[in-house]
Each structure stands twice: as C-alpha cells, then as structure tokens.
C-alpha cells in the first residue's frame, strides 16, 4: 500500500548516523525538470562535514534551491546519490531541517509564532501525538535563542521580514536537526537579525552541526563562512572562501565576461581570453 507509506511520518528514527561520515554527501547528482530541455543540475558532487558552515553561491536559477529540494525530498533527482550521515537521504527526516525561501510560505495563514516554532517538533511527534512538556520547553528555548520570546502569541504574518526569519530559524532549532539547510535566509532581513542568524549558526556548527546556506550575496561570504560552493547548474568552484572568491569564479558563476583589466595575479588563463 504505497499510499499508507506516503501517509506515514514522524516518530523517532532508530537508524543511527554512521560514524565518521559526511553530514551530507552528494554524488553525481543530476536533475531535469519535467519538460525542460536542459538539466538544472548536472553531475553535482558535494561533501559537507559535521561542523562545517557552507555557503551555496550562485545567481538566481543556478540550481541552489533545487539542490536543497533534492536533499529534502521535495524533488526526485534523475541520477546520482544523496546520503545524509551515511544513510540514504530521507531515511531519518529529523536529521535535516529547512528554512525555506520566503515565497514558498503562506505568511497570511493564521498561525502564531509559537505554533510555527512548534512545527519544528512535529517530525518527532507524527500523527496522533500531541506536544508534551519537553516539546514546549524546546520551543521556548528556541524562541529565547532567537530573542523573540515576547512575540510568541503574535500572528506570524504581522511581523517584519527579519522577525519572520528569526521564527523560521527558531523552528529549525526546535527541529533539532544535525544538517540545517537555509534557502536565501537573508533576503529582506535587517542587519541585527543577520548577525543573530550567523551568531547562532556559528554556535551550532561549533557544536558539531552542519549548515548549508544558499545566497546570492557575495558580501557576506568572507565574514561568515569558511567555505563556499559556487554553483551554476554544476559546481564551478568549491573551497575556502578566500581561495574561491575570485573575479574569475564570480564571472563564471554569474555568466559575464571576465575582463583583463582586473589587478595582476588574479587572471586565469582559461577565462582570460
């Protein structure tokens, strides 16, 4: 009964993480949207270790969101394998959390901040089970960490963009995932929220969690990330920010001509002509 397995969700997952494996391992993954002629992603390889904070960089339409969707199971990849902590993706859903792109959320829907953060606990509950004291405690802790405890009973639609993003990160904290995905979390976000988001991510990754943050904002890379992956349907560059953040990589990822009048020593023969 396929429909019954599709209906099942939540509850604890007893499959342990494989020790000493990547938090996320993407191998040769390709993806073709139905009816599209060109692959959105082609032969993508990516390994993220526990404790790493990786920026996924590229222009709009480069496939950043698609890659995150494949990890989550929102779309099915056409080729390749994805594993999370040594197990095939989607084996243990509580290990992966998402802060989705703002546009995919119905902000007008009448839910309170506390209800939204509680949604992070659903994966541990499943059908029929109601939140207990521990779930409520974790929700309050997450609210406090994001400094929105005083907004708990407010409608999420009434908040500012920055506050809404704090709510989504608080939900990820309540979810207690080991691999945190964030899709363009910095759009429409004020500076203090941005700092709080990164401060929180730094603490979490220092404690061994892994985080992948998609962004098209190059300005934040060198300050907040140790590693950047440039994506334009395929991986263009992957490495420490100071090594991969070069005019050539940016030009290639964002699809414009690299000009020779950049300072000496940054040119790349492959692209310079």
């Amino acid at each position: 009964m396929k429909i019954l397995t599709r209906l099942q969700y939540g509850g604890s997952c007893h499959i342990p993480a494989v020790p000493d494996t990547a938090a996320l391992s993407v191998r040769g993954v390709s993806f073709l949207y139905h009816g599209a002629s060109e692959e959105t992603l082609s032969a993508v390889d990516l390994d993220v270790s526990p404790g790493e904070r990786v920026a996924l960089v590229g222009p709009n339409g480069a496939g950043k969101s698609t890659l995150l969707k494949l990890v989550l199971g929102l779309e099915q990849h056409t080729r390749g394998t994805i594993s999370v902590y040594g197990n095939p993706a989607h084996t243990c859903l509580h290990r992966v959390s998402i802060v989705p792109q703002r546009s995919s959320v119905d902000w007008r829907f009448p839910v309170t901040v506390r209800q939204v953060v509680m949604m992070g606990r659903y994966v541990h509950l499943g059908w029929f089970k109601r939140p207990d004291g521990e779930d409520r405690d974790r929700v309050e802790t997450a609210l406090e960490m994001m400094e929105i405890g005083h907004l708990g009973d407010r409608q999420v639609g009434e908040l500012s963009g920055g506050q809404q993003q704090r709510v989504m990160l608080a939900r990820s904290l309540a979810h207690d995932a080991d691999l945190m995905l964030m899709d363009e979390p910095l759009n429409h976000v004020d500076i203090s929220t941005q700092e709080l988001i990164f401060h929180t991510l730094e603490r979490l990754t220092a404690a061994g969690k892994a985080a992948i943050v998609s962004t098209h904002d190059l300005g934040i890379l060198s300050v907040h990330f140790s590693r950047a992956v440039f994506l334009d349907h395929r991986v263009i560059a992957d490495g420490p920010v100071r090594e991969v953040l070069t005019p050539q990589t940016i030009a290639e990822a964002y699809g414009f001509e690299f000009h020779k009048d950049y300072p000496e020593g940054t040119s790349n023969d492959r692209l310079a002509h």
Partner: protein
Amino acid sequence: MIDWLIEPLQYAFVVRGLVAGLLAAVACASLSAFVVWRGMAFVGDALAHAILPGIVVAYALGISLFIGALGAAVLAVFGIGLFSRRGHLREDTAIGVIFAGFFALGIFLLSRMVSFQDLGHILFGNILGVAAGDLVAMAIVVALVIAGVAVGFKELLVTSFDPSHAVAIGLSPELLRYGLLMLLALTTVVAIQTVGVVLVLALLVTPGAAASMISRQMVRIMGLSIVFAIVATIVGFYASYYANVASGSAIVLSLTVIFLVAWGVGQRRRSASYGG
C-alpha cells in the same frame, strides 16, 4: 415567546429538519476556517456541484448518497489533477471545466431518472424532508469530519502554512489536500439536505470569513465559525417556519448578516487599535 419557539418542534419531521440543519452547520463550519485560509472557496463550490451526478446515480440505485457523492468527488478531483498537472492548464481553469461538466451531467441524469421536484430539493435543499435513517448517516459523517479535522489539525496547519517544511518532515501536502477535499465532499452531501447545492458554498465560506474578522487564531476561528453557523441555522429555521420562506435562503441570509456584523466589529477594532 417559549410557546413560539416550541410550537414548530411538536412535529417530528420538523425536529428532524432542525437536527439535520445543525449537523450540516457543524460539519461545514469545522472545515470553513481551512477553506477560507487555504483559498479553497472555488474548489469547494465546484466540488459541491460536481458531486451531483454521484448523488443522482446513488439515488436511482438505492444506495447511500454519501457513496455516490464520494465516487463523483474522487472522479472530479482526479480529473482536475489530470488536466492541471504539469502546467497544461491552470488549476482554476481545470476546476471550471470539470465543475460545469459534472454539474450538467448531474442535471441531465436527474431529468432522465427522477422527478423535477427532486431537482428543486437538491438545488435548494428540503430541510423538512429528512428521514430518520438519513439523520443517523448524517451524524456519522459529521463525526467523521470532526474527527478528521481534529486528528489532522497540526498536519493541516503545517501543510497550509509551509509545504516545504511539511515535505521535509515526511508529510505529503498533496495527500492532505485530497483528504480535505474528500471531507468537503462528504460535508456537502449533509448540507445539500438543508441549503441545497447552490448555497452550500455559503456554509463552507461565510462562517470562517465572519470568524476571521474577529479572530486570527485558527482554533478560535473554527470555534466561532461553528457558533455562527449554528445561530444562523436556528434563526433561518424559525424564519423559514413562520415566514414560509425557503430554509436554505433563510439560513444563508442569516449567515450573511452575521458576516456583516462581524466585519463591522472587526473594522471598529482595527481602527481603535490604530488610534491607540
């Protein structure tokens, strides 16, 4: 005054009508908040019309109308999915095509199989024509709908608010949507008895809309919706008895008045909170 209220209740068929009306009110209103906030007004109305052929066939075969309605609803929803999937058509276009086609088929079958008076009852409701056996079936369905919403409340909440997170935790927003549509189809059959196909939409949308004027808490919206629908049904019932007007129209007009009052209250509150 008491006599005035009790007088209609001397007749068993009148009491059955009132109970049927209250059951329909509770079932519709408990779904109303989700219909309103998920933007399902159009698909709800379409479904209410699209189940007509199923009801006619079930009536002609002498089987439960609920089975006929569910069958037609499944076909209609499947058809809508088929024509709108992969971007061939926008979903509202697919809904429009299916809705009109199924409703026309229903009227066609009705005019071939049963009398024209029955058409009137299905279109506009016949609150005084409820049999005792119907009441039991209706009560079971209403219990099912309420149980469905209660069990799936948090899942409906998350799939409505953030489908990406819902998928990430293993829920299927699509399946939940189908489930909700099936509950809508069942509810519609109950409501047809009292307000008819044409006005079912009012019971599905107006209570939730009125409650949303006053509260922004999902649970409170659902509670208020049920209260509003019950009040409107009782008012409509007495109006229909004493003023000899069609029950469906009396119920829906009462609901509309409640909505207007709620809108006024909401406006005043909003301007008061801006002023303060």
